[in-house]
Structures are given as C-alpha cells and as structure tokens.
C-alpha cells in the first residue's frame, strides 16, 4: 500500500468501521450525558477532536522514548533491558490532564469566542475514556508517529459524528410517546444500538 492510501485507510477505519464510541464503547459517559442538546454536542465533539489529535502523538513520543522496553537506549546502552511500561497509565493520564488544562488556557488567551463555546467541556474531557483509550490503542497496535496523528484525528471525528447523530435523533423524538421509565438513558442506549448497527454496515470496506 502506498503512503497516502494507507493513511486514508487508517482514517476511515477510525471514523466509521472501528468507531471509538459505537464499536469500542469509549467515551460513553459524556456521550450519553451531553447528547441531550445539539449545540453542546457539537462543542464537545470539537473539543474531543482537538484534544485527541494533540495527546495521542505526545503520548506516542513518551512511550517510544521513555517507557517501552529498551526505549532509554538513547541515553546509554545500559538501559537496554529497562522496561518502564508499568508507568504508562499514570504518565498517559497526567499528560492528558495537563494538555487539557493547557488547551483551555491557550484558548482563553487567543480565541475568546471558541473558549466560550468549548471552554466548559474541556475539564470534562480529561476523564473521557475515549482520550485515554486512543492512547492505549495506539500503543497496542504499534502505530508510527504519523499513523498516530491520523488515528487520533480520525477517532475524534468518529466521536463527533456519533454524538451529533445521537443528539439529532434525541431532539427529533422529544415528543414521542416513550414508556416513562425508558425515557432518557434507556432510550438513548437503544438508539445508540441502532446507530451502531448502522455503522457496522461499513465494516468490510477496505481502501
């Protein structure tokens, strides 16, 4: 496979076939809580795209040059057997928390309007499993740095698509006659099931 095609394939896979919400169940907490409103869903979707695209490559660099087995050989050959892999969870989550804080400060300084629309969602994102999940999958699948960037961005777009779709459906059915105790989360789960089934139709597409 040639260069561009390969990246395009990773991208479509991350957006449609292995959608991070609908196929891997990541980020569902905010997915269900925020999809009550469409504009808020667009906001958190954008924030997830930004944070995933930034944190996945940073964590890749840390994994490759600090944490994985034999990663420290660039300091000295004595470290060839050193394996700091057990620190990965703590390091990744701290990077994510710190990056979220940084992005928030950056936005506040340079784009007030963007901050006003995305600002309140950023703290929520630090504990959104899709962000940590993105980094962990990147390690498990042994992506290179450029693949990681594409994968992070693609997963973000996938989250965006899924949450905006669910929010629109929930908006449409707001006056429907649903059994009272199925209302809210129960119904949202069933709708997500149907959405996920629809996204499964993409599986088998190979670029």
């Amino acid at each position, binding site marked *: 496979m040639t260069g561009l095609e390969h990246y395009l394939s990773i991208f479509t896979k991350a957006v449609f076939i292995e959608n991070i919400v609908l196929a891997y169940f990541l980020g569902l907490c905010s997915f269900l809580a925020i999809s009550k409103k469409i504009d808020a869903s667009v906001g958190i979707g954008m924030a997830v795209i930004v944070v995933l695209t930034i944190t996945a490559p940073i964590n890749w660099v840390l994994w490759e040059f600090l944490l994985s087995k034999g990663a420290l050989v660039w300091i000295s050959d004595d470290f060839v057997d050193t394996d700091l892999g057990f620190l990965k969870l703590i390091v990744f989550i*701290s990077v994510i928390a710190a990056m979220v804080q940084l992005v928030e400060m950056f936005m506040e300084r340079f784009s007030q309007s963007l901050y006003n629309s995305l600002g309140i969602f950023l703290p929520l994102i630090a504990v959104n499993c899709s962000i*940590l999940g993105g980094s962990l999958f990147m390690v498990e699948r042994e992506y290179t740095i450029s693949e990681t960037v594409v994968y992070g961005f693609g997963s973000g777009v996938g989250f965006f698509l899924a949450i905006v779709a669910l929010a629109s459906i929930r908006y449409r059915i707001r006056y429907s006659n649903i059994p009272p105790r199925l209302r809210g989360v129960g119904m949202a789960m069933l709708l997500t099931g149907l959405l996920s089934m629809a996204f499964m139709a993409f599986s088998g597409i190979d670029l």
Partner: protein
Amino acid sequence: MELFNSESKKIISDPINVNNPISLQVLGICSALAVTIRLDQAIIMTLAVIFVLCSSNVILSLIRNYIPNRVRIVIMLSVIASLVSVVDELLKAYLYDMSKQLSVFVGLIITNCIIMGRAEAFALKNGPSKAFLDGIGNGFGYGLIIIIVSFFRELFGAGTITLPDGGAGYVLWRIPESWYAAGYENVGLLVLSPGAFIILGLVIWVQREMAGVEEDA
C-alpha cells in the same frame, strides 16, 4: 461507629437498587459494555472495579482534609491511576489470558466515571469507614448490572456460560447439540457491539421499573 446499623445498610443497599451507578447515576458505562461479551470477563472486571473503588474511596477519604480544592482532580487521578496500575500488573502476573482479553479496558478503569464520581461525591465528604461501604455498595451495583448483561449476551450470543478460572475460563454449561439440530440458532448480533447497547438499554428499563424511578427528560 457500628458497622451494621441502618445507616450503613442504606449506604450499601442504595447503590444496588434505587441509586444504581450504571442505570440511575449513569456512571461507568464505557467499560460496562466492552467487558460483557463473556460472563467470566464481567466477573473479573467487577472484582477489579470493587478493589479500586474501595481502596480509592478509603485513601481519598483519609487524606480529604489535606487536599486543596483546586488540585483535587489531579490528586484523585494519580491515586486512582496508581491503584489501577497495581490491578493491571496483578492480572498480568496471575491471570495472563484474562488480562489479554480485557486488553485496554483494565487501564480504562482510571477514567471509569464511577470511581471519580464516588470519590468526588462521597469519599471527599465522609469518613473512611463510610467511604469503604459506599465503595462496596457501588461496586456491587456496577457488578450486578454487567453480570446480568454479560449473562444474556453470552448465553444467547455464543450459547455458553463461562466462569472464571486460572486460564481461559471454565465452561459451566453450553447449549446442547440437539437444540441446534432442532433448529435453534445463536443470535450473533448480541456478541457484536449493537447487541451490548440494546441489552443494556433494556436492562436499564427493567431496573428502573423495579426501582420505581423515572428521569425527567
């Protein structure tokens, strides 16, 4: 403090029934779905979550008066992340097959909202023994739901019931060949992700009917 007075009973039983973390507080759904393909995975995951939840609740409750409010999220995250790393390493050492199957979802206990949510809502406001009971209650509430979901997904999706053992799982019961010969078929959809969403949606509905709670949406 007496351990089994009515207040502590309430702390334990509420989250199992009328304040269930998954179906009513809507916390921790992310991992709840991914590990429900097989019953044994769900049981191990429940044990891991109960361990992390109880220990993090107790630790955070012990240090709650020393945590500055502004940095509490970072402190909570680092306590939880260390505990999860311990669980991850333990699973790798003693239940290697299981840790391969659960893959990244053990790590994702860190961002499981139940743990952060209970720390924030309960452990930082109450003493350690109450926080421990709250951890037990919410852990079992979580476990109850995911064990029900995984039971149905495995039984109707794959036709088996698997209990955890040291290796790849012990098959307790499997649908006999004669049923298949008579025309019974597994519902393959349940093993895939849409099945998880739909079963959990139905379980939430039933649970809310039983607890008698509805959401004002």
